[in-house]
């Protein structure tokens, strides 16, 4: 049903040209001609918001951002009555791997590279664009002790960083009942062995050149073990998968780890969102995990909104969805905010980006308009 809508939108695009001052056939800056968008509110991504800000981008890269940024001659200017922000980033994703994101044949698959599991045009990936998600960390599904190397991929286009994380399940998610390890002490013994005499990716991780993604498991004791393990071996990286991170905020900050907040579900949700507020008070850098296709892509913004409802500032929530997430994924030089030199991954919203009530009007990846909302007559103006 969705692809059919894409042809439908392109037709509409031509019809709506009348509103645009002057616009070439398709709004794409791939072939060298520049493009500019003026939005009522431009969210740079570091918390500052520019009224009537303009962003200019050419060949997929942002060239100018500012209130009165000069629009070079011959550049198409798109007026947008709403908000503009950088594309959202999901920190733990399985979309695009088509269910092959976990090899359960053996406990440790340290050299497995998720980049080779990524199919950009897989149906699971398209859903992310509609929700404004332009970049995500493709990670192995929990289930094996060491799942492999995560990749950072652009939604619908290529992988921009291959060895983003080494994925490790230190808690019960790394155990199975019919192969090693079946106990927590067994998995801890194996990890100690791998990291005390490190070879290959373990060596690079111990040297600090490869961050780890630690699935600590849900109970507070398992999160404690994960933090202790990271500190013992001087590892940097991300703590994922736990709903009880709020009480561990001080320990997490001391260990210098980042956090990926897991999905908000009505029954277990309270701990997740209170944890996010506690982490933000302790200045622990955090982003949001998504885990589609089993979780609908809209959960990213829904979890952020639930955190705001529990007391998180909406600017912090947007930063967690964009710039902080980019830093945690190690691609802050490429994506994550609306600044010159970064990729032109932009999302046009009808209202505040962190308000689930705002519609995704259009999404640009590397300067290409890859999604546009159907223009319904009574456009939902704020």
């Amino acid at each position: 049903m969705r692809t059919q809508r894409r042809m439908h939108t392109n037709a509409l695009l031509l019809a709506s040209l009348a509103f645009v001052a002057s616009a070439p056939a398709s709004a794409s800056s791939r072939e060298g001609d520049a493009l500019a968008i003026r939005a009522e509110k431009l969210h740079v991504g570091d918390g500052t918001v520019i009224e009537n800000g303009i962003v200019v981008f050419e060949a997929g890269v942002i060239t100018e951002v500012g209130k009165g940024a000069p629009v070079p001659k011959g550049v198409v200017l798109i007026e947008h009555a709403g908000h503009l922000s950088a594309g959202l980033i999901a920190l733990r994703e399985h979309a695009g791997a088509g269910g092959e994101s976990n090899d359960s044949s053996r406990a440790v698959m340290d050299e497995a590279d998720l980049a080779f599991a990524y199919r950009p045009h897989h149906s699971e990936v398209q859903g992310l664009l509609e929700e404004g998600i332009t970049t995500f960390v493709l990670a192995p599904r929990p289930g094996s002790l060491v799942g492999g190397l995560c990749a950072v991929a652009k939604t619908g286009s290529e992988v921009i960083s291959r060895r983003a994380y080494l994925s490790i399940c230190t808690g019960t998610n790394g155990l199975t009942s019919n192969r090693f390890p079946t106990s927590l002490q067994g998995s801890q013994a194996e990890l100690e062995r791998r990291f005390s005499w490190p070879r290959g990716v373990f060596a690079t991780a111990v040297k600090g050149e490869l961050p780890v993604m630690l699935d600590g498991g849900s109970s507070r004791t398992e999160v404690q073990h994960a933090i202790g393990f990271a500190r013992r071996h001087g590892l940097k990286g991300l703590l994922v998968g736990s709903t009880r991170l709020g009480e561990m905020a001080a320990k997490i900050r001391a260990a210098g780890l980042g956090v990926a907040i897991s999905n908000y579900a009505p029954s277990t949700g309270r701990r997740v969102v209170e944890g996010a507020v506690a982490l933000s008070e302790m200045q622990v850098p955090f982003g949001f995990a998504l885990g589609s296709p089993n979780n609908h892509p809209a959960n990213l913004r829904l979890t952020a909104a639930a955190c705001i409802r529990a007391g998180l500032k909406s600017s912090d929530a947007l930063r967690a969805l964009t710039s902080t997430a980019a830093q945690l994924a190690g691609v802050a030089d490429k994506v994550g905010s609306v600044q010159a030199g970064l990729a032109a991954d932009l999302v046009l919203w009808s209202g505040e980006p962190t308000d689930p009530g705002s519609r995704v009007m259009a999404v640009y990846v590397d300067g290409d308009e890859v999604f546009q909302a159907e223009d319904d007559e009574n456009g939902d103006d704020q």
Partner: protein
Amino acid sequence: MIWTPFLHAACLTLCAPPLQDAPGAEPQEPEAPKAQPAAAPPADLRLHAERVYTGTGEILKNALIEVREGKISSLRPGRSAPEGVPQVKAITAGMIDLSARLHSNFNSVEQSTEVQPHLDVAGSVNLYDKRFARLARTGVTTILVNPLDRNVIGGRGVALKTHGPMEVEARRLKARPILRGAIGSEPSAANHAAFGRPTDFYSRRPTTRMGVEWEWRKAFFDAVAAKRLPEMDFPGAEDLREALAGKRTVMIQAWTTQDIRTAVYLDEEMQREGFGDLDLVIDAGAEAWKEPAMLVRNSTIVVLPPHTAGGRIGSDGAFLAWNTANQLVEQGLTVCLSAHGAGPGPATLGHQAGFAMRGGLSFDQALAAVTTAPAAVLGLSDRLGTVAEGMDADLALWNGRPFAATSRVTGVVIDGTVVVNPR
């Protein structure tokens, strides 16, 4: 701080104002009239009991106990209760359960191979588990946590207090090292013959008691051989050698008399072979009463499982006669009781001591079976088990004669902290 929400008027003896449980918050009571010896620093906590059952055989009447920095700083009998100090009918040392079974179930035993002597259960203990608090409320202050008995040799146990810092390494007691194993039907319960079923590591392990016993002997023989032939070394061989040298207590779960016999013969075979002598403790030795002679011969320590109404307990249908504790003690054996981690209700460790007394055990022997005897097994007799100056301030406060069916634990102190307020 757990408080019983429905206060009964019946505890007439308790009349002091509420006790702040934060140590050091003790209100300064007026200087005692008689000459105070060199002004001792104020106690963190003071308690008064009509009777203190010290565990050394001596009962102190109307005793005032003072606690400082987690230790009992002074114990003075024949005193009236000063103002503001909680009074209770009886105080015993905190009880110790060597078979509390507070492991995290199947996550606490590495079943990929049936002999894992070196793996420490501490890695899988969850101190946030509600059962620790429940156990503390029944007056049990120290427990031994062992892996689930699904392996022949499960690994190392860890001794912990039931209240304290929330990290296992910080709460671990420097007790005698423990090697945990099992004999009987449980270690081979999940195994099945290889043919006809998908082969996984459950299809190549012993499926009979003979197989389990063979795994025990093979483990010890290999460990001794590995000392001479390094290429035969395997993880855990050092643990087994320490066990043979008696430096590591071997705690074997054996419910029935057949399995207890296997454990004792294993120890005697090690002695015959000259490999060493196991410091053997039988856990859940329900049918130890059937052939006590071999236990006496081997001076084996027995930890009894909880008494049940029908006497039957355990997966092998062992029968625990209620006079077992009395019979074994009369023959000079060391006996410990256990409640398998029962929380508040009719089957706490205090009740198990009462049921053992119903089987003929005297009060002092029952008190020893839940305090000094297990403390000795853990090698912590210098810290736990008795109420005396210098010992850890682990106390159980009772509202009547301990272990009587008509009294219960109304207050618990662990390391000087009031965990359950007697108010």
